[in-house]
Structures are given as C-alpha cells and as structure tokens.
C-alpha cells in the first residue's frame, strides 16, 4: 500500500493517508486529531482546510462553505479530498478554535 504523508502546519502533526481514503478518514483511522470532524460528507464545512503544498483529487462540496474562489485557491473540505502526493495543509474550519470545547459554542449559541 502506498501512503502519503500529510502535515498539519499549525501543530506540526503528521499522519499517513492512502490515496484511496480522504484526508479526514486517514486522520481519524489513526486516532489523530487536528482537523475538526463534522459530517464527513461535504455538507457541513467544519473540516475546511487550505492545501498549501501537494496535489489531490476532490469530490463535490457544499457551496455554503466552499465557494468557487475557495475551490480555486485550494480551500477545500478534508472529507472530500484524497491525496495524490504528500500534502501540507492549514486548518480553516469553523470549529478550528473550539473543537472539543463545547462551552464557547454554547456561549456563541446564546
């Protein structure tokens, strides 16, 4: 099996991801953290990342969260992207700052 190495720039954390699986699935399979996990279906936008280096294949993503400009600038959803080379990425999703911390989300909901 070929694996590509994915580096999350903010944390320096890296994980191996097969070209047959999405960046999010690769991260989750190994129990790694860093990219927030939402619906895993391209619909909710929480796993939005910016690919800063490397190549990838992608599937359709919700326009609520990935505009045409985003897509052109490699701002995509990690659940819809499979690596075709080693990759580096930055985390952009709306849960990036509060993942695993429900209290701020409740405050925001108020």
């Amino acid at each position, binding site marked *: 099996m070929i694996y590509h190495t994915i580096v999350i720039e903010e944390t320096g954390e890296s994980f191996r991801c097969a070209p047959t699986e999405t960046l999010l699935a690769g991260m989750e399979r190994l129990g790694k953290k860093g990219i927030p996990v939402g619906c895993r*279906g391209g619909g909710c936008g929480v796993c939005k990342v910016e690919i800063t280096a490397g190549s990838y294949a992608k599937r359709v993503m*919700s326009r609520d969260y990935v505009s045409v400009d985003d897509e052109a600038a490699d701002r995509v959803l990690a659940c819809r992207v499979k690596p075709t080379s080693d990759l580096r990425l930055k985390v952009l999703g709306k849960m990036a700052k509060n993942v695993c911390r429900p209290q701020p989300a409740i405050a925001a909901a*108020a």
Partner: protein
Amino acid sequence: MAMTGVLRPGHAQMRVLDLDESVDFYSNVLGLIETGRDAQGRVYFKTWEERDHNSVILRQADKAGIDFFAFKVDSDATLAKLEKDLNAYGVATQRIPAGELLETGERVRFTLPTGHDIELYSQKTCIGNDMGELNPEAWCASAEKGIAPIRLDHCLLYGPDIEKAQAIFQDVLGFFLVEHIELEPGQDLAIWLSCSTKAHDIAFVRHPEPGKLHHVSFLLETWEQVLRAADLMSMNRVSIDIGPTRHGVTRGTTIYAFDPNGNRFETFCGGNYAYPDQKPTKWTMDEVGAAVFYHDRKLNDRFLTVVT
C-alpha cells in the same frame, strides 16, 4: 384523545450534492421505498409502514440541508383556517399548487423567524403499504430491507429566535411544549414541541445562523433495531455522529448519523408520551450533557456546531 387540526409530520424535502449516491443510501441503507420521480428530477420516498405516497423528497443542489418540513392537517377546511389564522397572527403565507409535489394537494408555506420553511397540507394520495388495509400481515419483506424505519418522526432545526417559532406553533397551530433546556431564566437553548401524544413532532435549538438542519428523525420499534441499525451503518461505512445511546430529553434511544452528503439523520426508538395537560419538563445548563446524551453526560463537539 381526538386528534384534530395538525396531525403529524408529513414530508421533508432534503438537498443532496450527489443524487445517485443519496438515492442508493436512502433506498438500500436507510431502507426507504422509492415511490416516484418528478420532472424536476426530485426523488420521492416513504417508509415501509407509511401509507401516504411520500415522506422524504431528495433534491440535487449545490449545498446540503433542508428545503422545507411539512405537517399534514385533518381537512381542507383546517388548512384554510390555519392559513387565515397564520395571516392574522402576522405570518405571511404562500399557496403552492396541488401537484407541485407528486400526489400532494395544495400546500400552505410560511417562513419561521428561525429561517425555516414550514408547510401545511391536507391531501396526499394514500398508496397503502405492502400489508394492505384488509386482514393485514404483521410486517412484510420491506420491513427488513436496510434500517427500515416505521415513519418519518420529527426534525430538529437550528436558528435564531426560537421563542418566536414556539409562539407560532403554540398559539396558531395547536402544538404544546413538552421539554426544554433553559439557557438562563426566560431563555431556552432548545425546545421540543408536540402536536400529538409523541414526545416531539418538531424541535429547535438556538443558533446564530438561520435555516439550518440538525437532523431529520426516523422511528424504529425497539432498542434491538437501533443496534441493528448501527451494524448496518458500519457495514455500509455510514458516518456516525454518536450512538447507539440514549437521550435524557424524551428518554428515547438513538443514533445520530449522516447521509452521504452530510445531512444528519436519527434512528430513534422509544421516547416518552406527551399530553397537552402535562407540565413541560425542564433541563438546566448544568445538566445539558445528560439532557442530550444520557450515558456520556456531556455534549459531543458536533452537537452544537455541525449543521447543514
């Protein structure tokens, strides 16, 4: 108890990014029965037990989420009365012609202060289920295909101004509050409303973005079937949010999972009974974890943030 006025949830129209992938999921994994396709390309489904032509409609779109959620009312006269009552309450309505949805009569549509479109209708063709209406068998082959829920049960919607939506449902449509999570005195984080003896027919969570879908829920008959649903989800690589577990609110058993394009759905079983004369059950923020997920007693990171 005589059920009059608004009877039950009737249909939900969902947006999906990849129609073929979603049709396969709703047919073969969730186990709904496809009942039609229209000129717009929308695909219609019902559960094996439901008798009316459709309860779930899928529309291909460039974003996920819910287009509208509808309730069936008991007669044309009730539909006309509720339309007038909504207008008198200051809620603008729109008539959608009969046939715009397959096998469905005229619908009265209005937009809630939470940003969601709600519809009322009185007519939808009864096509029956596979057991028939005369000396029926207890169940049929389609009751075992996929997860195979009994019915479209309820939905949970996220948006601002939930107390204004609550007022419309209570003051105009005859719903009552069954349970609520109090954020602070006088302001709720979440409300569960019923028009029947069900634990809830619709629910809302306060959220800054309008018009968002948290989940559409489907009813199963037993906890065993909820566990079977979890097995089917794993076999089919369905994205599970949380569960199988139990809610404190409603005490229903549950799995939250996502359809292939990120719309959360629930496979739900049990839940308490509700009657309009009962005092609403209140949950406080110091027990919000147990209110939502009774076993874990804490919210997961997705409950308040992941919506479509």
